[in-house]
Structures are given as C-alpha cells and as structure tokens.
C-alpha cells in the first residue's frame, strides 16, 4: 500500500501523518503492532454482565454530587426582641428596611450609592451575613444588595451588565461586600449569645456614621442649613424630607438644642425612617431539603415541561421553536426546584461546583463569561441569588412599569480579597422574564394573527 507523504507544510489532517509514519517505519514495527492486536481479547460484555443503560433522564447521581444549597426564607419580626436582633451588632440577615451596616463608619459614597441611569440613591434590598471561616480577615463578612426601584432603569441595566467591567458600565443594581477581622474597631470580641429583655437596653452599637435622615441607608454628608441637625445623602432626599415632615419639625429642633450634635436615632432600637423603603423582614436560613418523592424518578422537572401541540396555523420559524423548547425545559426545572420550598427568597451556595438556578435559558450568564474581580483580578464565583418570591413579600405593585425580575445572581470574589476600600463592589447579573413583544420585534418577524402581536410579558 503506497501512501503519499504529504508535502512539508501542508499537515492538514493529523491522522494522515500518522499513517505516513507507519508506512515508512518498516515492517518490524508493523509486526509488533499486529502482535499487540493479537494479544487483545475482545470479549462481549453483554452476555456475561448486563451493562446498565446510561439513561439520560436518570439523574439520581446528580442528587448526590450536587452541592448543598442553603435557602433563605422571609420571617416577619413580631416581638420587640426580634426587632432588636436586626441591629448591626447582631450581624443579621435581613431584607427590606434599612441596611445594618457592618462597618458603620466608612460607608460607600459618591457615585456607587446611586443609580447610574436616573441618579436616585439606591434602595436597600437585602443583606446576607456570610463569614468565611477559613479566612481571618473575613471573620465578619456581609454582602449588601441595593437596587433602583425603577423598572425603566432595570431594563437599561440589562444592556449594560454584559459589558466589560473595566469600562465602568452603568448599573442600577449594586452589591457591596464588607469584611472585618475578629479584632476590629467596631464590635467587641465577645459575641452576644442573645439579648434577653434585660440586656436589651444596654446592648448598643459602637461609633456610627451619620445616616441620611430620610432613607437611613446612606451616609448623610449634606446637612439641613436651617437646623443643622438633619443630615441627608442627596439633594433629592433633602427635598422629600422637607416637603413631608421636616418643614414643620425643623424649627422645633432649632428651638430645643440637644447635647448631641445631631439627631441620632436611638442606637438600641431599629430606627424607623420616613423615606420609601421596602418592608423590613429577617431572613432565616435552612438547608434545602431533598425532593419529596426522592424514590421516584430523579428528574421530576419533566412534570412542568409543556409539550408543544402542533399548530399548523401559526408560522413559527424553526429558531423560535428551538428557543421555546430550551426555555421551557429550563423553566420546568426551575419550577421543580423551587417547588421543594415555595417560600424561598434566597439561594446560597459558596461551594466550588455550585451553579445558579436560572429561570430561563435566554438571559442567563454562561460560566465562561463570568468576569474577574475588579480589585484583585482573581476569578469570581457564584455565591447567592435572589428569587422572585421576594417581590411578593415586598408587596411590589404589579403595574406595567413595576419592578419584576426572574432572578438576581451575585458573583463574588473567590478569594474574598482585602483592599483599602471597605465596601467592595461585586458583580451582579439580573435575569428578567423575556417579553414576547420584544422578541418578535427584534427578530423582525410579524405573525399573521393579532394574538401574537398583542402578547406581552408575563
């Protein structure tokens, strides 16, 4: 058998070079190869042991390998003791209301605390106390999530979140991470086991920065020029407060001088601010239970997959059908997973193999596309995600322009780096429900029936 040697520099297919080598190596090597082949005993396994069929729907192994997810549930604080536990010195997990800042002095300032699109100060969503036990400087570690309550800004944010972080894209959702060592200037070394009613009155926080009198979220840098005691984070909040209540109170404060330099709210109670904020809750964590019907098929997400019925009337392009299928399957597995605990608002998992639970396949972020940390250039990793049930608990309105998301996924620095900045920004990805109108409009496809044209988002 003559094999033509490929010309030098034209090595296209590797296997061709291999055969060429074989032919010119001579007969000795050929013999040894055939000997090797003869020594091989090819037995058919099917007769001796039945080979278990690898069924693509058998996901029982996946249950074992999947990392353990901690879920967060909303719990309404009822007794005054519960309210007291929401104070920063108890390192709470909370949603809504005002943030319990971990580092109460060096708060985020400047542009990082306002929406990059409308300029309004961001509103507090939730905070997660997630210390890293293996790292000394992260003995205390909290992640704070803020977002602009305007849906218009969130839609603009969708375009910006995919852009390169080095270019400082505009965001309307921001996540801050703060970590402290055990020995720090703000909290005592010894922790409170729990404050009974008697200790409550004595349990107070350490030194704190001045917070805005209206929202209670951000640092109050500007000051009311009349009474010089009410601090504000921005002009907008000063205006709002003046119009609502401060106009009347200002003179009274001026008239009754206090010893303190400002009207600091009582450090022992959770402060109540007049500004618009979402209702305050505490977040209770529990590990995710295994599926109820664990002995049945492992992947019960098939339950929710809508098998499309043939509709020869509607001219669905092939692309649309495939898109719908992948989205449907993703939605089915999403529904199945949250059906184990329908009240969950937070999914937390900091293990290496953890992947976020996407609601749709469109609008999700691939693992390869996760950017790096802007401070240490290290890799980012999925830490937690916020579920849409939180909107129900926040009593968000359901108007056309109201806030709505499918899931908000937060990626944090894998090494939880320390830098000079106290509140470091982490990467957050928002997935919204796709609106059929935009899908059809963008693809330039117009369906013949009005039903499709009038169809809008969920």
């Amino acid at each position, binding site marked *: 058998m003559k094999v033509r040697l490929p010309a030098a520099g034209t090595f296209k297919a590797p296997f061709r070079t291999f055969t060429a080598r074989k032919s010119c190596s001579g007969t000795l090597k050929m013999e040894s190869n055939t000997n090797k082949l003869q020594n091989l005993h090819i037995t058919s396994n099917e007769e001796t042991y039945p080979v278990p069929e690898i069924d693509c729907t058998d996901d029982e192994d996946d249950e074992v390998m999947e990392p353990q997810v901690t879920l967060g549930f909303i719990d309404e604080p009822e007794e005054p003791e519960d309210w007291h536990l929401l104070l920063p010195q108890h*390192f709470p997990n909370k949603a809504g209301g005002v943030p319990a800042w971990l580092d109460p002095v060096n708060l985020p300032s400047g542009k990082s605390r306002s929406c990059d699109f409308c300029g309004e100060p961001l509103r507090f969503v939730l905070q997660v106390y997630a210390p890293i036990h293996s790292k000394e400087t992260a003995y205390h570690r909290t992640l704070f999530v803020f977002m602009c309550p305007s849906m218009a800004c969130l839609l603009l944010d969708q375009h910006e979140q995919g852009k390169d972080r080095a270019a400082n894209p505009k965001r309307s959702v921001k996540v801050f991470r703060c970590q402290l060592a*055990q020995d720090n200037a703000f909290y005592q070394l010894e922790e409170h086991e729990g*404050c009974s009613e008697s200790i409550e009155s004595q349990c107070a926080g350490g030194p704190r920065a001045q917070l805005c009198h209206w929202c209670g979220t951000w640092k109050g840098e500007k000051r009311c020029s009349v009474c010089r005691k009410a601090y504000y984070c921005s002009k907008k909040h000063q205006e709002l407060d003046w119009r609502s209540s401060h106009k009347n109170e200002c003179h009274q404060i001026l008239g009754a001088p206090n010893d303190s330099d400002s009207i600091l709210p009582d450090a022992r109670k959770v402060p109540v601010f007049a500004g618009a904020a979402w209702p305050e809750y505490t977040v209770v*964590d529990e590990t995710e239970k295994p599926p109820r019907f664990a002995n049945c098929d492992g992947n019960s997400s098939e339950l929710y997959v809508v098998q499309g019925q043939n509709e020869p009337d509607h001219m669905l392009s092939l692309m649309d059908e495939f898109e719908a299928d992948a989205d449907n399957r993703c939605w089915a597995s999403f529904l199945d997973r949250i059906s184990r605990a*329908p009240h969950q608002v937070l999914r*937390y998992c900091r293990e290496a193999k953890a992947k976020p639970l996407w609601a749709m396949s469109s609008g999700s972020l691939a693992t390869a596309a996760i950017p790096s940390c802007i401070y240490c250039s290290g890799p980012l990793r999925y830490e937690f995600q916020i579920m849409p*049930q939180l909107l*129900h608990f926040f009593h968000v309105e359901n108007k056309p322009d109201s806030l709505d998301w499918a899931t908000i996924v937060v990626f944090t620095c894998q090494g939880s780096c320390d830098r000079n900045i106290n509140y470091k920004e982490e990467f957050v990805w928002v997935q919204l429900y796709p609106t059929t109108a935009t899908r059809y409009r963008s693809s330039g496809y117009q369906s013949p029936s009005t039903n499709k044209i*009038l169809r809008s988002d969920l």
Partner: protein
Amino acid sequence: MAERGGERGGERGGFGRRFGRGDRGGRRGGRRGQRQEEEKWVPVTKLGRLVKEQKISKIEEIYLHSLPVKEHQIVETLVPGLKDEVMKITPVQKQTRAGQRTRFKAFVVVGDCDGHVGLGVKCAKEVATAIRGAIILAKLSVVPVRRGYWGNKIGQPHTVPCKVTGKCGSVTVRMVPAPRGSGIVAARVPKKVLQFAGIEDVFTSSRGSTKTLGNFVKATFDCLMKTYGFLTPEFWKETSFRMTPFQQFTDLLAIPTKGLMLEAPVETVEA
C-alpha cells in the same frame, strides 16, 4: 485567643452554615407555623402576583391578551370548579441494551363543565408521577370553548356555534350543532371531553384511526379550540383594543385602524 476563636467559629453561623442560636430556637415556632403555610402558593411571575392579589378576577382577561400562563396555580385560582379525569394510562417502552425501559403515559382531561377545558399528556417512569404531571399540564392548557345555538336563541347556549373540525395525526373529529335534547352523540372518548367542556348537545363524526386514544383526544381538543377561532358575523365589528395588564400603550395601537383591520379578529368573550 486561638481557643476562643475556635469556640466562636463553632457557634457563629451565617449563611453557608446552619445557624443554631439559643434564642433563635424559640423563634423557630414561627417558622413551624409557616411550614403549614408552605402549601400556600407564592407566585413567581408577575401574572401570578396579579392573580394572587385578585387584580385579575376572570381567566377571560388572560385569554383576551393571550398572555402565557406559566404557573398552574393561576388557573386553579381563576377557575375554581376544575375537575380532572384520567382518560388512559398506557405503558410505552423503549428498547435498550439491557431490555426494555417502560414508562407510563397518562392522558388527563380537566374542565369545569362550563366552557373551560384542558388536556394534559405526560410520560413518566411511575404512574403517580405521570398523573400528577399530566394534571399540571392540563391546567396550564385550559382554553375557552365557545357555545352557541342550533336554532332559537332561547335559554343558554348549548351546542357548538358552527360546524368545526379538528385533526391530529390521522384522526379528524367533526362537530356539528345539534338541537336541544340530542345529548352528546359521540364515542366514549370525545364524549368525556365534551362533557368537561360544558357542551350539552352535539353531533360528531370521526375519521381515521380513532383507536389511538392520544390522537383522538387531541383531535377533539383541537376542535374545541377552534370554536373561538371561527369568524362569525358577530366579529365583523371593529375591535377596540384594550391595554394588557402589563404593557404600556405601545406604538402598535397608534397605527391607523386600516392597518389593524387586516389582522384576524381578536377573540372576544361571548356572554
């Protein structure tokens, strides 16, 4: 210092580790109460939230705007009288190297016997799972059924408004309006579906391999879906579009009406 650090590490919690403080144990009572509530539905989609708040009272408002229903609890809330029935459970098999893998296919019809019917088909390894899944899918696919009169418009509509036909596979089912008192003249399988739909009198005619229950039942369902797709003189009037619960007033509605008239009529609800 190190020992204290170790102790603290054991007692301190935070996300990622189970939290077990003493005072929190007392508060767990609140959570236990909530566990009973966990059967209550927490909506995930905006439509679900609207339904839960009772801003949407009838399912017809969802049909009017052709909004996709992604949670079956929405249908359960809006159509309270839904009954379900398992039509058939067939074992289907797939040949593998190790023998046959048997799964069960369940056909479930849901309906409130008053103009809403849904069909769900699910295949799963266990019968119970298949039935559960089929019920959920059936609820997600609930459609309105238009009823009309055979002759005099006295009393409530009792039959299909016109001759309609539905096809699935080789099976075609044709439904013909019938006078009051005829009853449902149909085979056992479509009779069940038509009873769930709330049709009292109808003549049917079927063709094809009606032995295949899947196709037969899908054909009747397709036929029922078409009742609201049939253009009758009542729909000749120009439709006045209403805003969907979510969408702002779009440019589409600002297009002059001549352009809109070319489209097929929007399905309105018959009283």
